[in-house]
């Protein structure tokens, strides 16, 4: 008899799906006020206020706020821009810094209580960011080397027999113009999407188990514990994805600036 209950109580559960990502507009009827869009605006506001506050009263002996702001800035400038791009890196620090803080803040919104939605799990946001990066590094490369030399460097690798170019040139073109922006955006999107879905499965599942019979009630703390553990794991993934997106942008810019690929 308990077994029947166990089976039956599983029937009402609706597993989380892609529908959970299409949230209704906050203001009814206005489709531009969905949660992701509002969160993106909130993130821009938060980043601006934070860094203006952190840099306004700059002192030799930094306050805690100034120290936090400067360590993020220093991380992007030194570890991402300078180590990868080399000399003349200061031109790209503003873009890389904007990219890093924007992605990081929006990702972390995925685990902030009450907000709890990573805007990057809608694929259009990573697409736009990847298009910016795409335009940036090709523009820089073309302006630095001229369009003929830039394309020649991409298409024809030195030291290869002529016949092999038939095989390799399409691959180089596809890699530089299609696969790079696509993987850049899809990696961020897929990580955020899967992470949010994973948290939904464990939290909603735990909640549903709690409403079941006594046997299921005993299991639900494990589901919640797993959900909490995965939240910390998600925090790591969110930071890592913001880092990788910015790192790859820096490396693509460095590749476009380098004379020899």
């Amino acid at each position, binding site marked *: 008899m308990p077994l029947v209950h166990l089976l039956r109580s599983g029937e009402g559960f609706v597993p989380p799906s892609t529908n959970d990502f299409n949230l209704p507009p906050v203001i009814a009827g206005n489709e531009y006020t969905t949660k992701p869009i509002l969160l993106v605006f909130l993130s821009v506001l938060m980043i601006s206020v934070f860094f203006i506050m952190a840099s306004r009263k700059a002192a030799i002996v930094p306050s805690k706020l100034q120290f936090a702001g400067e360590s993020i800035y220093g991380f992007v400038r030194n570890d991402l821009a300078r180590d990868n791009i080399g000399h003349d890196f200061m031109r790209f620090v503003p873009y890389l810094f904007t990219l890093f803080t924007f992605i990081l803040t929006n990702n972390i919104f995925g685990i902030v209580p009450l907000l709890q939605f990573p805007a990057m799990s809608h694929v259009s946001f990573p697409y736009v960011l990847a298009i910016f990066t795409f335009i940036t590094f090709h523009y820089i490369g073309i302006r630095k080397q001229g369009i003929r030399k830039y394309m020649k460097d991409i298409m024809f690798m030195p030291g290869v027999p002529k016949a092999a170019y038939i095989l*390799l040139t399409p691959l180089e073109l596809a890699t530089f113009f299609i696969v790079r922006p696509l993987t850049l955006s899809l990696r961020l999107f897929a990580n955020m999407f899967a992470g949010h879905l994973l948290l939904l499965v464990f939290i909603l599942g735990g909640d549903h188990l709690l409403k079941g019979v006594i046997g299921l009630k005993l299991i639900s703390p494990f589901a919640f514990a797993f959900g909490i553990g995965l939240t910390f794991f998600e925090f790591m993934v969110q930071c890592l994805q913001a880092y990788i997106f910015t790192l*790859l942008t820096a*490396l693509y810019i460095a590749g476009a600036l380098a004379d020899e690929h």
Partner: protein
Amino acid sequence: MTHNEGDAWSIFGYLLSGLLFWGGVGWAADHWLHTHFFLLGGLLLGMGASIYLVWLRFGRE
């Protein structure tokens, strides 16, 4: 260390574009000629070409 990470991702990109491009060519050939072996041939060719490209870019001294 950061360079290594970027290299690993660009290897991934090369392999993916090799498989997609030549596999796509093979798929299109199959589609129009109503055959069944071009797809596999294209995938293998793309895999070979992209591994060759990776060797040229990262394995060569």
